[in-house]
């Protein structure tokens, strides 16, 4: 059931009525039933796997000893690997259960926190099931932690008109981003990236920049809808994006993009790896080669590589995802290793990092590095990736013919100019909003009804109908 669909709208309407009607004692139970209905709607058979995951993890982690922790990891990762990489394992028609990647993250995070004694294991199986299966965040996150979610989920939330309004407004923003912005540029990207060979550099650059726009509009739009739906239920979810494209550096970008996933990796893979014995041994070995390097820097190298390779593989068993992970591991390591030199260099050349032009330069540099990574990620094959890089770096010219060629993927020649104008207006408006919000978080918080009216009108007239699936659902 897509979050942008009539069945979901009806489901939500009915569910809200029941949720606020059942009373204090039964509200969380109603939510649990709602989760089950949402899940069964997708594919009734697959509920069995989420039940296996919930019951086994809850049962094993009641006694969070090492053996149980390892067993929990084995069961959950086993299910994830079997389903997610089934095509590569030769089991061709095995579709992955809804949200398996995301609920596995939550499950493993919970198990790790129990094992590390950061939290007390959940006493109530139903409460634990409610946390794992909470339907708004089930399919694409955000990856909530037990500490943040448990109390909110089991607490009673009385009907609050303000929550409904705020949630509704957030949902409108999400639908706008998805159907108007992402939907509009998506067609262009698909056309160019499905056959990049022989295309001009300008077309490839436009498609790559559009891909950045699509990814952000699609994913953050989904998060807006999820947070809006959750807000309507009186439950606040963690924000997953904080204007990532205004980051000054790649490490900063990853602190502002898909925040919950990156925090998960930081807490449950990176930090444990840094302190692990194997890493100490390996970094000691490296220290003998790089005698001048700091100990701290050396200790970050292998965990960083591990995190980024796992992140790449998590997206799927494709060369492009692995390549993307290795690319960002390299960039992050480069950033760590050169950090102190760059600081010294900045001081020597009196490079004022607060200067607006310096900031613009840094943001553009981040976007450039990011774009290269996204080319690796989005390319359908290795040869396509090579063709795209080659096209951009050796075949970019700006003249009438190239501009005309760059307009072609918009589809019908008649609509090219109209599409360009609308995309430029929308992207510029979105950029202005983000820049203003970066300076002042409260910007654009007034006149909500006017913005809602404008967005509803634009969605109805310019939304790309039939585009209800989201990019991250695939993961």
């Amino acid at each position: 059931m897509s979050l942008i669909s009539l069945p979901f709208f009806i489901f939500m309407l009915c569910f809200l009525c029941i949720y606020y009607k059942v009373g204090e004692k039964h509200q969380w139970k109603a939510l649990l039933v709602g989760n089950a209905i949402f899940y069964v709607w997708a594919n009734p058979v697959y509920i069995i796997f989420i039940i296996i995951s919930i019951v086994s993890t809850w049962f094993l982690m009641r006694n969070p000893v090492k053996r149980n922790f390892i067993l929990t990891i084995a069961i959950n990762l086993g299910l994830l690997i079997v389903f997610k990489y089934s095509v590569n394992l030769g089991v061709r028609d095995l579709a992955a259960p809804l949200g398996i990647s995301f609920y596995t993250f939550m499950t493993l995070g919970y198990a790790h926190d129990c094992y590390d004694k950061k939290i007390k294991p959940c006493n109530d199986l139903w409460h634990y099931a409610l946390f794992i299966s909470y339907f708004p965040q089930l399919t694409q996150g955000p990856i909530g932690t037990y500490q943040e979610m448990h109390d909110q989920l089991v607490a009673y939330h009385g009907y609050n008109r303000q929550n409904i309004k705020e949630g509704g407004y957030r949902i409108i923003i999400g639908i706008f981003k998805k159907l108007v912005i992402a939907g509009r540029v998506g067609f262009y990207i698909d056309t160019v990236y499905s056959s990049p060979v022989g295309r001009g550099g300008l077309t490839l650059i436009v498609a790559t920049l559009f891909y950045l726009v699509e990814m952000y509009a699609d994913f953050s739009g989904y998060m807006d809808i999820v947070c809006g739906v959750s807000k309507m239920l009186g439950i606040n979810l963690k924000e997953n994006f904080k204007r990532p494209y205004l980051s000054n550096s790649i490490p900063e970008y990853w602190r502002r993009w898909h925040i919950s996933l990156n925090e998960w990796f930081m807490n449950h893979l990176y930090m444990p790896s840094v302190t692990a014995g194997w890493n100490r041994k390996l970094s000691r070995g490296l220290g003998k080669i790089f005698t001048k390097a700091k100990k701290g820097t050396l200790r970050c190298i292998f965990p960083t590589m591990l995190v980024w390779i796992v992140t790449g593989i998590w997206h799927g068993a494709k060369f492009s995802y692995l390549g993307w992970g290795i690319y960002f591991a390299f960039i992050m390591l480069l950033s760590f290793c050169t950090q102190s030199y760059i600081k010294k260099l900045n001081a020597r050349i009196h490079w004022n990092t607060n200067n607006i032009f310096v900031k613009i330069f840094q943001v553009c540099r981040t976007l450039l590095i990011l774009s290269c990574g996204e080319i690796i990620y989005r390319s359908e094959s290795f040869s396509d990736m090579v063709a795209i890089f080659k096209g951009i770096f050796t075949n970019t010219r700006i003249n009438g013919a190239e501009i005309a060629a760059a307009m072609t993927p918009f589809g019908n020649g008649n609509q090219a100019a109209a599409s360009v104008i609308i995309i430029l207006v929308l992207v510029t408006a979105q950029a202005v909003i983000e820049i203003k919000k970066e300076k002042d978080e409260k910007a654009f918080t007034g006149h909500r009804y006017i913005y809602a009216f404008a967005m509803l009108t634009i969605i109805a007239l310019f939304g790309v109908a039939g585009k209800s699936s989201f990019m991250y659902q695939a993961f």
Partner: protein
Amino acid sequence: MKKVIITVAAALIIVAAVVAFKNVYSCKMPIRNRGIHDAIQTGDLDVLFIGSSTFRANIDMPTMDEAYDGRVYDISYGGNQLVATSIQYDELKRRSGNDYGLIVFELGPMMLTQEVALSDSRVIWDLTFEGKRELWRSMYAAGNTDFPMFYEYFVTSGMDDLITFPVTEPFYGTRYYKGAKTDETVSPGKAVLESEEFDISDKSLVKAQADAVVDIIQKCQKDGQGFVFLESPCYHRLQKDPTFIKYREEYIRILEENNAPYILADEVDFESDDPEFFEDMNHMSAKGRRAYTKELIQVFKKRFGTEEGSGND
């Protein structure tokens, strides 16, 4: 709650007004150099082409202008279908009392295999609401409709053009002349044309399109309208394709069964194996379009006598 209702209602009213405007009045927008409205504004015509992008690319209007003293026009849409062509003919007859000496319809064999669909949002723009409804009914009858399609057809399709009309129209207006392309397109070269992959072997006949051919013929015959079906040359590789030949024969069979005049590609003195003349398998380069149009005029004059062309053999 009152504010929420007002916000939603206001948005709905605006949307309804814009949608109504698009569906009812878009056909009267002052569009230059293309479409039904502009063709009607041109007045009486000796030769009027109605077809797809093939006609748009393959007919050189300045050359036609010279031969017919400006009394020519080319109504063409991307992937225009026979079902839509029949509706476009009705629109012309309903909306104007103009005299059309000869109407040239497209004899594109593969048009018989196209699913009934909206191929070009410009079709939506150019039709009256009645025409739009008619096309929708045809799509519905062919089983090619659902709610997203309905929404796209009546609401979002062509909306981009409408909202950006003042800015984009001057740009589009220069790209066409009397409905045909003005771009100086060049051939990509023999190597590209010879290696371009195409596979039409899985295409099958769509009955609605075949019925539309009969419908067009019957309407023209009933109206006493001069007409001819013209096969525009494709690059020789496509013309030799067995599937292409099969549907070409089928198209000719329909025309002959209904006593409709037609001109086949080989009746015009034109080298369809010269790569310099083509941009791709179906569309000619500027050089090809000029050479072809010159020869086509000769055939027209021979077949239909004078500039006033009766359309009847």
